[in-house]
């Protein structure tokens, strides 16, 4: 780094706002992209470190940093909590990594208006707890809530587990303060054209969120959870679609396919149909991963069969009559939550659902954040795992599930659940696991599985991401999905970031 730039940054940020230490650069060199985990396991944890890490304390400081970067033509990358899974924060051209977490205050909160103004570096769980202390909730519960920030939510267009009732983050934000890549500080919201919605989901390529006004809601008077059993996926989807078209808005809608259901309901000792054993496939895998070397070797061998086991894993649970588990939750005012639940159960039973009572839903609620933290054990066992979240209309949903599942299971064991359901369609969340002999072959297999899956998504005409975002992982397919819309996206980039310094190489922009 040029000495003049270093000095200028130190002057703006102070000693505790700037670091070129190798430990810091290594820490900020990756997010939770599983491809990066494969590399880390193979001894390459930091292939793309930034040149320095900075911690601005407010928008004005950030603006000064950005202007300095423009002056020196240094790229910059935003960093919230680093829990993205698509490589969105990788510093492809080096430059500055800008950690936003010093900006983390709740500036004001007005329960009457139902709005709060919050600095975007705040941790998701800290934000939710702070609101709860005031009798409020954001209604946004991504599984990464413990290790993500409001700015990260906005950058990726994230979704929480209660999105059917509260919406995704783009439905919750009313306005925002943004530092543009020019260094200008603007407040966006309610314009037409809608610049706020152009910046949400831009993954730091068009500007950095520093503050946001979001909607907040009273904590629910009542939370009612339920589990239902359906014979198969099409039956389950029919129930969900009918509920939504009937005007019911469950807070939670989660339909597990046959393998996911079998693991959830019968994957361990002492568990019955009404007390799910695990919160998902990764939890199951982690529970099964043993402590002693002999069974560890056996497990590794089993995971090595993953490429060949895909189709068998698909058929097995169906043959065993696993069925599909549907978790529903209703929350809000007591009378309304009860009325919604009653109406939903009436519709579901008419469509052939078996009521399993409250236990499955309550068990899910207890463990709903646990599953993501089991991921590392799969990697330790020599395999790899990842997730793919896509969305489409009801009309195309079954075809999307069938096509993508078939594409994935050519080389992986695949599980899926349907969640984030809406009036017009739904998201599918695939979890897949596979194995290869070494790091290089793992990367080749990993890349091939993803290409096959995303090609299948494009072929059906679905959205290649519902809430994880694009990052590097899906950039090429995004451009194919956009088609001529890529020109519009490029024009927005040219207009807002004429120097092309803001998070270069993401969303398919040139590096």
């Amino acid at each position, binding site marked *: 780094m040029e000495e003049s730039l270093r000095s200028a940054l130190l002057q703006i940020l102070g000693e505790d706002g700037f670091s070129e230490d190798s430990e810091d650069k290594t820490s900020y060199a990756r997010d939770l992209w599983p491809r990066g985990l494969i590399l880390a396991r193979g001894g390459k944890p930091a292939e793309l470190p930034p040149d320095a890490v900075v911690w601005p304390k407010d928008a004005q400081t950030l603006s000064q940093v950005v202007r300095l970067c423009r002056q020196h033509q240094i790229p910059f990358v935003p960093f919230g909590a680093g829990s993205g899974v698509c490589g969105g924060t990788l510093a492809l051209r080096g430059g500055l990594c800008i950690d936003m977490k010093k900006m983390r205050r709740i500036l004001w909160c007005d329960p009457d208006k139902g709005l709060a103004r919050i600095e975007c570096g705040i941790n998701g769980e800290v934000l939710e707890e702070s609101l709860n202390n005031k009798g409020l909730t954001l209604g946004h519960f991504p599984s990464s809530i413990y290790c993500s920030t409001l700015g990260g939510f906005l950058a990726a267009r994230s979704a929480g587990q209660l999105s059917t009732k509260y919406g995704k983050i783009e439905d919750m934000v*009313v306005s925002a303060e943004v530092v543009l890549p020019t260094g200008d500080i603007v407040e966006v919201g309610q314009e037409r*054209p809608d610049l706020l919605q152009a910046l949400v989901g831009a993954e730091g390529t068009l500007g950095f969120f520093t503050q946001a006004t979001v*909607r907040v809601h009273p904590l629910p008077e009542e939370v009612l959870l339920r589990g239902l059993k359906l014979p198969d996926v099409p039956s389950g989807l029919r129930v969900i679609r009918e509920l939504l078209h009937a005007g019911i808005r469950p807070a939670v809608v989660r339909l597990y396919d046959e393998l996911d259901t079998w693991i959830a309901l019968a994957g361990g000792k002492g568990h019955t149909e009404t007390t799910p054993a695990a919160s998902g496939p990764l939890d199951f895998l982690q529970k099964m991963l043993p402590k002693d070397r002999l069974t560890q070797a056996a497990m590794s061998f089993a995971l090595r069969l993953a490429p060949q086991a895909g189709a068998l894993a698909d058929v097995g649970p169906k043959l065993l009559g696993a069925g599909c588990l549907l978790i529903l939750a209703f929350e809000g005012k007591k009378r309304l939550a009860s*009325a919604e639940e009653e*109406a939903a159960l009436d519709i579901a039973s008419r469509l052939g659902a078996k009521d399993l009572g409250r236990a499955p839903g309550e068990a899910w609620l207890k463990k709903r954040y646990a599953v993501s933290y089991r991921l590392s054990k799969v990697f330790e066992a020599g395999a790899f795992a990842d997730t793919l979240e896509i969305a489409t*209309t*009801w009309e195309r949903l079954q075809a999307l599930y069938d096509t993508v599942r078939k594409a994935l299971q050519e080389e992986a064991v695949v599980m899926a659940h349907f969640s984030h359901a809406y009036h017009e369609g739904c998201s599918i969340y695939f979890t897949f696991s596979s194995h290869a002999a070494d790091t290089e072959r793992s990367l080749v297999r990993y890349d091939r599985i993803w290409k096959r899956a995303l090609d299948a998504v494009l072929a059906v005409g679905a959205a290649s991401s519902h809430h994880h975002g694009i990052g590097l992982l899906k950039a090429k397919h995004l451009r194919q*999905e956009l088609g*001529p819309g890529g020109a519009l996206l490029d024009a*927005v980039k040219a207009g807002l970031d004429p120097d092309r310094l803001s998070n270069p190489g993401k969303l398919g922009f040139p590096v």
Partner: protein
Amino acid sequence: MSLEAFLTKARAITASITRTGDAQVTLSPWRAEELPRLIELASQEAVPLVVGHGKAAPLRLDLAHLQEVTPDEASFVVRAEAGISLGKLEEKLRSFSLTLGPFPGEISTHTVGGAISGRSYRKLGRYFSFWEDPLLSIEALLPDGRIYHATPAPRRATGPDLTRLLAGSEGAFGIILAARLRVYRRTRSAKEAAWRFASLGDASLAGRELLRAGLSCAVLFAQEEKDSVALVARWEGAPSSLQEARLREAEDMLGPTSLDPSDFLKKRAQPAPSEPEATAEVLLPCERLGEVLSQCQERTSARFSMYTPESVLLSLSGVLPAALYRIASEHGGVASPASALYEEGKEFGARLLGAAYPSLQAVKKALDPLSLFAPGALGL
């Protein structure tokens, strides 16, 4: 610019082109596929274009022939081409037992393309959640002549929302050729209620309470009468038991329904008269409504509809738009995001678009360097 050269070459491509003035040519395509080559030609000859009637530009695009309607009954979505009016679209949906939901009659003559480019589609019903936008995706002609088809997914995380960027751009960024809109099951089952309030300000706070309690309605608006205000709500589309629960909850909050809502609802559904009284519309925080109205005593009528739990779309007659925009901006409001700006946009672009104006100007320049699409729209 050479309009004559454009006309000569365009006639070789399509018969849907006529001279409609000394310095104007109208293009009336029968299919959207006719457009890319023509736009490429317009670009080569540097001929600016606008869509619709009453606007001045050498090339006028009339999309009246684009009226195809294709319902997706599984997804409760309809694909409608830009030239069909919302009223006619609603009639066509009837045969499928579907509906756009109750919308104010004033927008029934708006075409799908016009409603999206000017954002009046935002006044379509939001039956069950205020955040459920009626617009799912669009197909738009871009200044480079290509047609962008946004993926029809209910929600996504695939970068910036280009649909929302195009919607409301009044043609500046792209021309809407078709859209996918949400529809609902047509049903007779409904619950209605109306309450009397002393002022629109009081009514807006009550509306805010209803929406924050999760009581999203297909219709929720207030109308100023001689010496009081009526707040009117209608729930439809859900099972009767659920609608009944919503009504009971609303009555617990606001008291028993004290007015007959049916006349208000009928009046709202009537199409605008052929010479409507000029109205101005702004978006305001609920709690600032009273202050704004106190500065608009010359108004001849006033009403609002709930836009979000925290804001209302206030519509006033007898008040100059410029004056209302100024008053609203002093109280945290903006010109309505559900009405086109048209001429006001040209004059007030920077003020109405706020601090983001230079950014939007830069986007326009990058996308349409010759400023061929709707020159001057939004003041960009």
